[in-house]
């Protein structure tokens, strides 16, 4: 394990495009970076039996999620020559069309950044104790299931 500490990955409410822009901007001083890979999760207005999803309400076992994210981060840094990695996940109600997940990896060369981003997304979906409650227009709800 390195000396990296578990970071808080949670943001209350949607992740704004301007937050993403600021995060990108901060990397302009890191001149060994040649490629950034970003994945953004956006809430879909899925049609379900009960109606159309208008929002997803996210909750988490935050402490465990941060511990698990720390393990993922360490594994990914051990596997890929990354310059940096940032992960943010929304909590609370995120309307359809808004962004709920922001994964950002940077490396000298594109392949490492892209592979690390993809693997991080797959792992956090499987390993972080986060739950999405799909709010159906008309006051009912159902729980999201990850594929």
């Amino acid at each position, binding site marked *: 394990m390195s000396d990296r500490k578990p970071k808080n990955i949670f943001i209350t409410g949607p992740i704004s495009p301007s937050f993403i822009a600021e995060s990108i901007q901060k990397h302009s001083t890191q001149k060994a970076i040649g490629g950034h890979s970003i994945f953004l999760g956006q809430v879909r207005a899925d049609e379900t039996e009960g109606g159309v999803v208008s929002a997803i309400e996210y909750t988490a076992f935050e402490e465990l999620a941060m511990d698990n994210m720390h393990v993922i981060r360490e594994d990914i840094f051990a596997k890929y020559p990354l310059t940096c990695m940032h992960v943010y996940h929304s909590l609370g109600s995120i309307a359809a069309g808004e962004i709920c997940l922001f994964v950002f990896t940077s490396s000298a060369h594109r392949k490492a950044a892209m592979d690390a981003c993809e693997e991080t997304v797959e792992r956090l979906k499987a390993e972080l*104790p*986060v739950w999405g409650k799909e709010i159906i227009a008309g006051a009912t709800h159902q729980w999201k299931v990850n594929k």
Partner: protein
Amino acid sequence: MQVKVLIFGQLTDITGVSELQLNDVSDRDELITALNRQYPGLADSKYAIAVNKQVINENIGLTDNSTVALLPPFSGG
């Protein structure tokens, strides 16, 4: 002896609460039995159990102030 139980995700639809205290459950299996008695819907639910943030796959003893979390399948991202 008191054990704190944290309930997450769709399981809160069954329990109506996201946290509860259980007395006199000395191990995981007793805890499950007590939970199923109080909330029969839990018996049909799929979830993992973490004790003090460690997911456990077999029966283990609980101690005073253990925190147990009921974790249905994750659906973040």
